[in-house]
């Protein structure tokens, strides 16, 4: 790897702690340094990813020779520092502070949902008095309701202001604040509105006491009753912990760590998960689960059957498929193992079967371009956080809408000055806009040209003379830095990714030199894994299909002879061929993205035209109802496997509960079919399949090898979250409806089209899985259309008017043009996630 990956060695100095010398990294926050070496100092307000507030006063320590104690969180490690953390003074400070914090704290631990993981309880036991000296009445506040997902109990608040700082600094939204003064201080939101950012659930975790608790989890269970499974979701990047009891999912949190002898949510967790991972995963509890295998019983009916007969039917159908007559479509949320097994089924066990995953793209060219971009993607968000990239350019990314977790990490790096952020996009939102400079707005179809111009200019030379006429600041921004990152969003145009953008971006990276890296971001959860595990038509686990060496090594792994295919159609083409009746078997593995696919007619035709449709899924949909064989799969905490984050980090999905009913883990289903098709190699566990993948990925360019361990803790600290975008949607034309406060009863098309739709596939929208998460309903943003004020004036539209989009019976209010999230180029529309009821 490049030398970028080597972190600088820490510059240690000697600090005397309680008389014993200790080596600590110089200049680091003293409290954090002590925590890192396992010397625990109690603290409430300090959080490693937030600014230092120093208001809880619990981390007071004694500096030798000074009469007054000092707070450790506001000190840095310096040579020769002599501190005591065990003296009488420190002890009395902690006791005193705990007493102060408790004099007004209500004695409602039996009611409080934080009970059992409350830092106030823990510190009371460890550092408190044990008795109360107060006889005065306790302060009690009114209890407001301001957020559908966050419950606030101000009486329990200790005013650590972590939530306020989180909203200000991390989520980038000044929404929470401190009100009142003195001991009538309280936490609230401005205007009593909801905490409306896509990361709001994290304030629940970082609250050290029971002030902010989760409404969906409210009084559902006690934390000590729940089983914790460290896993990863099928929808979001990064690790999570699923808290379950008797197969039911109670809550999803950032990964828990072992502390104080028990696995708890680390109150200092440096990982923030998005609301989608936290609340959107509650589809797990939906009753509408597929629990038994089903086969078609004629006349469109389905009947339940045994696994044996279902699997045998599937294997029989696949065996009977002729050369090139079996088509496997692998959902983008499958695990690496599932991708690998599907590839083996398609290529090794069926005769020249087809396989691809790129269903989210509506055109063949876009799908191929996305595949190219993902293969070239080598950017590393950890490096970004470490400050290795001097500059970052985001091209057409719309990350907050499609991958808020990635957005959060990039923004944090920009905010901390670890990288200088520039934007080249059709639309800029406030989230990045405040931290980015320069910002370039272009019409979406002109972006590729703009990038190409930049690349061409850079190929000529890096000094200012070569800068393109209208892009000098951006040119200089890029040319000044030897090391940087280009982030390209593959989803911002929905399924219609401009195929020219990918080669242009790759050319730009090339022109910028070896220090620059490239990161293609998509909301397709395991896109990187699909490319790497060989679920893409032109890729084998060991290399491109055209490479004879890759064919040979893959055939060795598969235990089956392989031949180079004559052509490698991607998913859009495969769907077209399926609709034309060219396949005998269509194997749909967890194809969530097809359920809301814009080309529904095409898919319906494909289902009708194919002799045998095999669908693996967990929820019924119109697709499973059309399928001939339905095989019920498992949830993210019922399945073993690995997922690849968008920056290449591997996350482990682990089985902590058995699947509901007769459902099975997907790898087991696929392996069973392979066995019935007399595969030579048999796998008895997901780990064994992963072993094959490890062999295949001999070249560690895609993955960091130290992450490839199966020991969960080593995977947990990785924090890459990408949210899955919801649907792909064809371009709509704008048709004006009659004005009115409510959607008009009759569609009344009016003139005024000709605008292009740039839309944000907002992560917080309903999809095949998310729509079944009732807790998540509260998060759906108000669907809206944003217009450039000039266009709005030209069309005679004002705030609050309703318009109908042609191409779909969707009514949208035009929302607050003046407060549109960011600038828009002329003649562009911005639609925020139109709501449709899923089929």
């Amino acid at each position, binding site marked *: 790897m490049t030398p970028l990956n080597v972190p600088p060695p820490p510059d240690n100095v000697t600090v005397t702690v309680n008389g014993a010398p200790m080596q600590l990294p110089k200049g680091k926050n003293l409290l954090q340094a002590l925590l890192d070496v396992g010397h625990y100092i109690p603290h409430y307000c300090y959080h490693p990813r937030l600014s230092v507030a120093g208001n809880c006063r619990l981390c007071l320590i004694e500096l030798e020779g000074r009469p007054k104690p000092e707070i450790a969180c506001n000190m840095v490690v310096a040579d020769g520092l002599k501190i005591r953390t065990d003296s009488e003074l420190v002890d009395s400070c902690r006791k005193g502070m705990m007493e102060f914090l408790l004099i007004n704290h209500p004695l409602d631990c*039996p*009611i409080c949902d934080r009970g059992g993981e409350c830092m106030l309880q823990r510190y009371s036991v460890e550092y408190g008095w044990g008795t109360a000296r107060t006889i005065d*009445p306790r302060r*009690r*506040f009114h209890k407001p309701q301001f957020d559908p997902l966050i419950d606030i109990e101000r009486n329990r608040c200790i005013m650590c202001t972590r939530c306020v700082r989180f909203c200000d600094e991390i989520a980038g939204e000044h929404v929470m604040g401190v009100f*009142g003064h003195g001991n009538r201080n309280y936490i609230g939101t401005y205007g009593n509105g909801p905490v409306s950012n896509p990361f709001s659930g994290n304030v629940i975790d970082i609250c050290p006491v029971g002030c902010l608790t989760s409404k969906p989890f409210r*009084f*559902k*269970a006690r934390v000590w*009753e729940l089983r914790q499974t460290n896993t990863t979701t099928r929808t979001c990047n990064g690790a999570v912990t699923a808290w379950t009891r008797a197969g039911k999912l109670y809550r999803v949190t950032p990964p828990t760590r072992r502390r104080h002898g028990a696995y708890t949510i680390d109150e200092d967790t440096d990982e923030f998960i998005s609301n989608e991972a936290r609340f959107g995963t509650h589809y797990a509890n939906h009753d509408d689960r597929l629990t038994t295998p089903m086969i078609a019983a004629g006349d469109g009916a389905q009947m339940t059957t045994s696994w044996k007969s279902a699997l045998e039917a599937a294997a029989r159908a696949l065996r009977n498929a002729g050369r090139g007559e079996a088509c496997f479509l692998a959902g983008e949320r499958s695990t690496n193992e599932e991708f690998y097994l599907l590839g083996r089924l398609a290529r090794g066990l069926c005769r020249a079967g087809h396989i691809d995953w790129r269903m989210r793209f509506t055109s063949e060219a876009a799908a191929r371009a996305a595949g190219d971009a993902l293969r070239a993607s080598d950017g590393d968000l950890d490096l970004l956080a470490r400050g290795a990239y001097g500059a970052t350019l985001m091209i057409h990314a719309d990350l907050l809408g499609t991958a808020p977790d990635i957005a959060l990490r990039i923004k944090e790096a920009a905010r901390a000055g670890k990288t200088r952020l520039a934007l080249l996009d059709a639309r800029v939102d406030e989230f990045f806009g405040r931290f980015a400079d320069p910002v370039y707005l272009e019409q979406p179809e002109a972006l590729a040209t703009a990038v190409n111009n930049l690349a061409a200019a850079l190929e000529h030379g890096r000094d200012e003379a070569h800068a393109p006429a209208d892009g000098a600041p951006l040119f200089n921004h890029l040319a000044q830095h030897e090391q940087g990152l280009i982030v390209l969003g593959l989803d911002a145009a929905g399924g219609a990714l401009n195929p020219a953008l990918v080669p242009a971006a790759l050319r730009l990276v090339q022109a910028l030199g070896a220090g620059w890296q490239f990161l293609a971001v998509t909301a397709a959860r395991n896109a990187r894994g699909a490319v790497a595990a060989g679920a893409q038509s032109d890729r084998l686990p060991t290399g491109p299909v055209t490479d004879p060496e890759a064919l040979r090594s893959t055939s060795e792994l598969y235990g089956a002879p392989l031949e180079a295919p004559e052509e490698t159609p991607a998913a859009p083409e495969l769907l077209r061929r399926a609709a034309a009746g060219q396949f005998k078997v269509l194997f749909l593995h967890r194809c969530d993205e097809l359920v809301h696919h814009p080309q529904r007619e095409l898919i319906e035709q494909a289902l009708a035209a194919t002799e045998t449709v095999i669908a693996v899924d967990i929820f019924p949909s119109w697709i499973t109802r059309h399928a001939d064989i339905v095989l019920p799969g498992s949830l993210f905490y019922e399945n073993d496997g690995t997922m690849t984050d968008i920056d290449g980090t591997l996350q482990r999905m682990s089985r902590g509960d058995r699947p509901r009913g007769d459902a099975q883990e997907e790898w087991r289903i696929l392996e069973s079919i392979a066995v019935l098709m007399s595969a030579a190699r048999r796998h008895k566990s997901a780990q064994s399949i992963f072993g094959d993948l490890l062999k295949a990925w001999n070249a560690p360019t895609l993955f960091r090898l130290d992450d490839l361990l199966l020991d969960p803790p080593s995977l947990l600290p990785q924090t890459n979250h990408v949210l899955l975008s919801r649907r792909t949607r064809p371009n709509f034309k704008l048709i004006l409806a009659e004005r009115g406060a409510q959607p008009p009863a009759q569609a009344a098309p009016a003139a005024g089209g000709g605008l292009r739709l740039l839309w944000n596939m907002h992560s917080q929208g309903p999809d095949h899985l998310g729509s079944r998460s009732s807790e998540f309903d509260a998060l759906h943003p108000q669907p809206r259309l944003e217009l450039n004020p000039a266009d709005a004036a030209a069309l005679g539209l004002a705030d609050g008017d309703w318009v109908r989009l042609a191409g779909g019976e969707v009514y949208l209010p035009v929302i607050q043009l003046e407060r549109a999230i960011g600038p828009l180029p002329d003649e562009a529309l911005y639609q925020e996630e139109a709501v449709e009821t899923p089929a």
Partner: protein
Amino acid sequence: MLVDLFKGFAVTFKHIFRPRVTLEYPEVKRPLPPYFRGRHRLQRYENGLERCVGCALCAAVCPSEAIYLEAAENDPANPVSAGERYARVYQIHQLRCIWCGFCEEACPEDAIVMGPDFELANYRRDQFICDKQAMLDPPDKGFGKEPNLKVNTAL
């Protein structure tokens, strides 16, 4: 030998005139010590609200995992218990229970106590799963004032 015989009769005679220890159960019941650990009872406040807030500490401490409960949020207009939370489902499996009384000790609200009722025979096993209604004291048998939770800030 006769001497021994009379000794034996003497003992018998002596006991004829002593008070009887055997009780005519079930007509007559033995007085129980106040700390007797019989069937669980769930107590109330004097205004009839349940004391139990469904904190599940009894379930956590129970060595034989005989207690199952599910909590829920009170309707403020029509509360079940004195806090925000109440036990929607509260079951004790009396075949599992070992009558150790830990639940009673763990309870922070003095809600669950073990009463004097020791007659636990049933005809079917499922009848040993004792639910909340079977354990609750009658509404007029509550005691103590519920905690005052009135807002005392101007905000």
